[in-house]
């Protein structure tokens, strides 16, 4: 993009969270009238940088220049006033209000006596949306629109508030191909009108198609900025994962041979499961004694899929079978009684922080320990075994779970199911936020459980986790299973390319 002047210039940006560097000495520049794609793995620092630009993170080092003048935003409101708007992956629309009200959110026009000028609002919102080529009834209830349209309306709200720089975080993850097409058309119109679009995405094909410029991040550093026309997907992947650049990361392109167990009996089978917009027509089998990895980007539908398999969500279509019989999954208790165990991705949804460790561990097997009266001594003894087995520190079964460190809390969430001896164990993001040692512990435990003959499903957005644990890998993309890796050689770059 020669001839255009930089709108926004960042230099020497650093930011750390609790002693961990999220961004280290990053220089970054945005030009007027460009679509700038931002790519990188989870934790590469792209979201952190965008939140600094959008005024969400205010505590950082480095300088930011807008139109050549140094600025420092103290809030997202500051950034908006300066013409920088952000559309998050989780849309912040109000589904019970009309489209027009959403466009005018927080800035409703009023008449002479301070009442909301409904008619004017509807008319102006309609004009604005039509001007962007968005064909929608301004009176329609927001929640009744498809996600793609809701996203367009939110985008138009950001534009309407006067944004010159619009940051889109994973805008295509929930969209169908025609919706993506429409979004891209709109982005091109905006760019030609002189606005700057920042497009953060895991979907490299989408980034390549719509961007003029692409910047790659890795481990909190900017790796490279290049014109999109000069590069391709494999070039980007290579720079994202740093092959040949960093000895530490050499393992990322290392070939891993999958030893799938095709003959083992099926422990759990899902047939043609669908759940509204979350996922469609998902069929899979988990065999006894194997680890099935399900890999996909955030928002690909795996969070909803694993909840369905544990009876927490009801699918619209399809059946879940164990031992050839369809399960009546009326609730999670039914799934547990059938022999399924589930460890969710967030500690908040698996632990009782204000209860002692032993009660957190015994909860899943209380009905086996006792029919009527509790057996606290037995509970403590069982919890004590898990403390030793999982190296939980400090080794106390009485300690309230909220006072353990994050990694140890995660182990306690897993410990809950180790006495249960499930037939099928479902793990969602089992290593999220763990340090290297704790990750190794979890990989060791999961391998041990597999060797006991338990069928294990590991759903993760972290390729390393899937590669370290799985015997067979399914790749999920936008709610569908798009690729299976079995009995073949796999590596991180191939996994990323499939997603």
């Amino acid at each position, binding site marked *: 993009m020669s001839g255009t002047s930089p709108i926004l210039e960042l230099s020497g940006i650093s930011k750390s969270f609790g002693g961990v560097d999220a961004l280290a000495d990053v220089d970054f520049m945005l030009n007027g009238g460009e679509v700038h794609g931002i790519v990188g793995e989870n934790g590469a620092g792209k979201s952190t940088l965008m939140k600094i630009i959008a005024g969400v993170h205010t505590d950082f080092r480095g300088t930011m220049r807008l139109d050549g003048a140094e600025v420092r935003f103290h809030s997202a409101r500051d950034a908006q006033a300066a013409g920088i708007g952000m559309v*998050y992956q989780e849309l912040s629309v109000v589904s019970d209000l009309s489209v027009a009200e959403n466009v005018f959110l927080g800035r409703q026009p009023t008449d002479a006596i301070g009442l909301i000028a409904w008619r004017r609002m509807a008319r102006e919102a309609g004009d604005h949306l039509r001007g962007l080529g968005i064909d929608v009834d301004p009176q329609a209830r927001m929640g009744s629109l498809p996600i793609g349209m809701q996203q367009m309306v939110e985008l138009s709200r950001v534009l309407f508030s006067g944004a010159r720089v619009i940051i889109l975080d994973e805008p295509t993850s929930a969209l169908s191909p025609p919706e993506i097409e429409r979004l891209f058309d709109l982005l091109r119109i905006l760019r030609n009108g002189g606005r700057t679009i920042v497009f953060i995405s895991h979907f490299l094909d989408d980034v390549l198609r719509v961007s003029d410029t692409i910047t790659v991040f890795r481990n909190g550093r900017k790796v490279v900025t290049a014109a999109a026309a000069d590069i391709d997907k494999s070039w980007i992947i290579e720079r994202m994962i740093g092959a040949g650049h960093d000895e530490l990361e050499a393992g990322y392109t290392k070939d891993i041979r999958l030893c799938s167990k095709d003959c083992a009996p099926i422990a759990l089978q899902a047939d043609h499961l669908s759940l509204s917009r979350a996922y469609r027509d998902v069929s899979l089998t988990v065999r006894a004694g194997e680890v099935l990895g399900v890999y996909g980007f955030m928002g690909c539908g795996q969070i909803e899929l694993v909840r369905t398999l544990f009876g927490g969500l009801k699918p619209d279509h399809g059946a879940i079978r164990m031992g050839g019989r369809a399960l009546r999954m009326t609730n*999670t208790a039914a799934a547990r009684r059938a022999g399924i165990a589930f460890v969710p991705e967030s500690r908040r949804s698996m632990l009782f922080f204000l209860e002692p460790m032993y009660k957190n561990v015994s909860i899943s097997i209380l009905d086996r320990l006792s029919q009527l009266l509790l057996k606290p001594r037995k509970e403590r003894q069982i919890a004590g075994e898990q403390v030793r087995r999982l190296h939980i520190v400090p080794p106390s079964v009485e300690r309230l779970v909220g006072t353990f460190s994050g990694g140890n809390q995660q182990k306690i969430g897993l410990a809950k199911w180790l006495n249960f001896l499930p037939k099928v164990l479902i793990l969602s993001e089992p290593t*999220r936020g763990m340090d290297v040692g704790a990750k190794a512990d979890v990989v060791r435990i999961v391998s041990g459980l597999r060797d006991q003959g338990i069928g294990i499903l590991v759903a993760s957005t972290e390729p390393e986790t899937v590669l370290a644990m799985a015997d067979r890998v399914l790749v999920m993309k936008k709610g569908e299973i798009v690729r299976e890796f079995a009995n073949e050689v796999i590596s991180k770059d191939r996994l990323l390319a499939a997603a």
Partner: protein
Amino acid sequence: MSAPGTDTTAGRPSSASPPRFHWLRDQLRNIAPFITLLSLVVFFSVASPASFLTWDNLANILTQISVTGIIATGLTFVILCAEIDLSVGSVANAVGVVLAFFTAQDASVNIANVPLPGWIAILLALVSAVAFGVVTALGVTVIGIPSFIMTLAMLQIGAGVCAMLVRGQIAYNVPDFIKVLGSKAVGPVPWIVIVAALVLAVGHFVLTYTRFGRYVYMVGGNREAAEYSGVNVKAIVASVMIIGAVCSGFAGMLGVAHLGSAQQDEFVDYLLDSIAAVVVGGTSLFGGQGGIPNTIAGLFVLGVLNNGLDHVKIDSFLKVLIRGLILLAALIINIYAQRMRSRWT
């Protein structure tokens, strides 16, 4: 890491401060009611030593808190589960009226009632209590109406049942068995005090020593975690709503005998008193923390306060205000206790 509000581990201390150091702070919800109780007893003893500090008056206080105590036992289950039941007074009233409706009344009582043998009347009253609980439970768990609103509707339905059955009249007679429990005494101890103590003891036993009790605490402590531990959360919530209604109904039967009449709007004060007893006692409004011992402490605080105010020279209109202020103070402590404990989660 891209979406706001996702669970990140950054910025959380890797090991929180040792629990023993914060014992006092963590026990705030358990200590506060005892300090309040002690202060009230000391205050009233000094203010009116001759009439407040007597055995007779202790018996008075115990009798006065008995009906509330039975209702509060059920309500403790409900609040521990992070739900609420606003229909307790109304259900108590309705069940008490049902009991009287099926009991032979004096000729002077002009209601079209259906006299049945005493044990059948008691049984029917209990069935009606269970029925109230089941309707509430279905509304909350199957339909998904928040318990706050659902029990508000049940409050009105209970009042409606009372109105339909007594039609503005007052019934006086209940089966002999209930009459004994509600208004007679063994030696110096009224039966109703013994019954209330038994109900509280059973409640404590169930909550502390049974599997069901553990589930109540866990569901109240973190409903999502309970669900993903394979606990049938809806069944537990339904059970506590039914327990709440049955306790209220039982209290209503004894209350009718204790008060000597069954009529409309007889139990209005019991709603506030029983909720106040549970909350003043320190059971968390967010669920999962507290228990029957807290409720007992709360019952005594309220009992001593209500009783003591009668022994000092004070504007009787001011009493209502004082009770409100005490309740407000308890709520503030309740919220702060919760906030302090949640700090390291």
